[in-house]
């Protein structure tokens, strides 16, 4: 439209005048007279159901489970990333709109810019995970006598992770540091998001820190200063949401 000359635009608008009825058939929602409301309204979140991996293949899944379990390791008090469901969370996210960058501006040209200009990669998260996980295992097999990441002892896993995080490790065909940052973000999301998305099973993340979850009324608590909140966390799916079956 910005390329049209005034003459072209005026010529274009000197066109058919239409009645109001036609306007109503247009694909707009016309609101007039009352606020639109319907029973059963709203779009609640679709719960992630346990089941086969929807995005990761076998080795990828094993690798991811190993990765999240080092980023957030298990301890006697709280499960680690794997048992908290972080790998499942990431799997479902990559299979969905996050994985495909739906809604983002993905038009070319793709040019490298400054750090301040943000990611200019044409690769979606799904592509990046695919490439990076393969490159990671290739690196590990090369550096550790044929062992994949998941097969390494924990200390060596941590060494590899640190190497990606701080820079010395390069991954073939993938940005190691960038992948690490994305993986860490997604792992934290998986640990702390509502269990409906497949992670934070049994609200372990929330229980660990003392976050009461999807509660909505703290009027009785606003002036209870320096006092612990007594109620257990609640998820969008209820008090027992996310319990492994």
């Amino acid at each position: 439209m910005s390329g049209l000359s005034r003459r072209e635009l005026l010529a274009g608008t000197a066109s058919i005048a239409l009645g109001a009825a036609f306007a109503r058939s247009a694909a707009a929602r016309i609101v007039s007279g009352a606020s639109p409301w319907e029973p059963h309204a709203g779009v609640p979140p679709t719960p992630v159901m346990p089941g086969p991996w929807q995005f990761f293949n076998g080795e990828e899944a094993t690798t991811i489970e190993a990765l999240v379990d080092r980023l957030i390791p298990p301890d006697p008090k709280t499960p680690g990333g794997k048992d908290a469901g972080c790998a499942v969370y990431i799997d479902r996210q990559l299979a969905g709109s996050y994985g495909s960058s739906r809604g983002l501006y993905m038009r070319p040209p793709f040019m490298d810019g400054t750090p301040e200009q943000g990611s200019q990669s044409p690769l979606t998260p799904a592509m990046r995970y695919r490439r990076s996980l393969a490159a990671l295992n290739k690196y590990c097999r090369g550096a550790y006598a044929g062992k994949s990441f998941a097969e390494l002892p924990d200390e060596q896993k941590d060494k590899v992770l640190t190497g990606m995080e701080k820079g010395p490790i390069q991954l073939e065909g993938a940005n190691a540091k960038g992948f690490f940052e994305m993986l860490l973000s997604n792992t934290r999301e998986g640990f702390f998001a509502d269990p409906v998305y497949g992670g934070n099973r049994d609200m372990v993340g929330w229980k660990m820190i003392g976050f009461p979850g999807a509660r909505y009324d703290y009027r009785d608590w606003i002036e209870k200063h320096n006092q612990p909140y007594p109620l257990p966390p609640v998820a969008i799916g209820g008090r027992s949401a996310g319990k492994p079956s």
Partner: protein
Amino acid sequence: MSQKLPATDIVIIGLGWTGSILAEALTRTGLNVVALERGPWRDTSTDFPTTYAQDELRYHIRHDLFLRPAQETMTFRNNANQTALPIRTWGSFMPPNGVGGGGVHWNAETWRFLPSDFQLRSHLVQRYGEKFLPEDMTIQDWGVTYEEMEPYYDKFEYLCGTSGKAGNIGGKKQAGGNPFEGPRARDYPTPPQRQPYAPTLFAAAARELGYSPFPQPSGNLSQAYTNPLGVALGPCTYCGFCEWFGCGNYSKASPQTTLLPVLVRRPDFEARTLCEVTRINLDGSGKRATGVTYVDAQGNVWEQPAELVVLCAFQLFNVHLLLLSGIGKPYDPHSGEGVIGRNYSYQVTSSVDAFFDNKNFNPFVASGAIGMCIDEFNGDNFDHGPHGFVGGGYMGAVQTNGRPILGTRVPKGTPDWGAAWKKAVAENYLSSYEAATHGSCYSYRDAYLDLDPTYTDPLGRKLLRINFDFHQNEMKMSAFLTDRLAEIIQKMGPRSIEKNPRKGPYTITKYQTTHTCGGAIMGADPKTSALNRYLQSWDVPNLFVTGATIFPQNAGYNPTGTVGAFAYWAADAIVNQYLKHPGPLVPS
């Protein structure tokens, strides 16, 4: 080719805060008003119900209520030595989408600007001399005074039911309020919010240092309220899902909770959603808007003729549409001429993180605008002479949320992952705190908006290009404010504190605020402003423009209170002056 619809009297572009305010005022005149909104209709119990609004992943991280960059975005560069590149995913700011606009997911921090803010240039020059200002600073007086705006601030606050404590009523200082605020005619419509633990500690510490803390004025209400239009709001329940989220129980002021129920009942009002205005059309002279062209969800193109057009979209999109429509002279940073895109500004925020032992702040008991603040270092409330910068901001302990994905913090030096991280997150969640400064951002010759030469949106239109970086003045200011805040936080007795002053370069990747301002500013001189004092276009008298677009520079406060006041101000001018005598309201 577009299909022409029957003419209407008034077209309003964008049905957010200002669109709703203008529509409500203009439908009282009996004229027909059509509001065109790019996004969907949004309603509390349908779109952000208490049953699933509390979803940090969906709303804060996946931006479910916001515009999708795929539909519209901008390109960005810090300076002319760079090539601007698209903002492919939101970071620094989050443009709204849908009926209610930013009013749906704001924090509801509802401030007034200072009297001196409105005469910024003349005030600063008078006090410090012209040489004190950076040579490339392009701040301007607004062309109106605070006194003229006071009744309109009042009107917006009473529309919203804003909760607060007045600091100055009719010239008399009121204990417990902001001693620096401009005089107001009466107190806030509802009492201030009750405060959680950390803000009370902050206030005590601030008082010890001789400051005058006061409760932040809040559009999350302290009690049930019925506004002058007869619309009822409820009391905030401190759910901690405020900014980025819609409010599920009618306790955050928004177009939904204050205006739309009345507006939809007006027989001469019609809202058309999922309709994107692509152009404001002009007649052959270029001095008169004939209406707008818009595209519906199916891609059908329509022409809606109208006698009066009011441009009420979000700030960036207002400027974009003016440029695409060829209204007003585009700004050229080299010559300094032109007005559309000129004086783009933002907000300069910073924080102080504090870690405590043996304190439980219950950070999840939170509200968008709950907290205690001080204003000693805002605007020109203090002598800038010794400090070598101008501007300032409020600072305070504002407890907006304790959401776990993005709202946890660990002391500097803690690893970002692993057992040490896990332990530190758990230990510090309830007992750490982030206090903030919220500083002004003045205008500069090289901070502007224009059209990108390369990138386009799905409709084939050039994207808006943001040319912006922080200047030394703002970074000096931020360091100063952060130091002052740290002094107060130190008095609260933390185990450790960390200062995070705003440093350049400005990055598009980390969220700061959505307070983008300027680009089609109001003023007294058509050479340096796009709009006259009534927000009427100097070039096209039957076009008015609202929003933070009109700000010649941004002050040290959240902008919405001022945006709302100016919407009422413009509505008044249209109803009482323009409609009676259509034409320029100010000789140009």
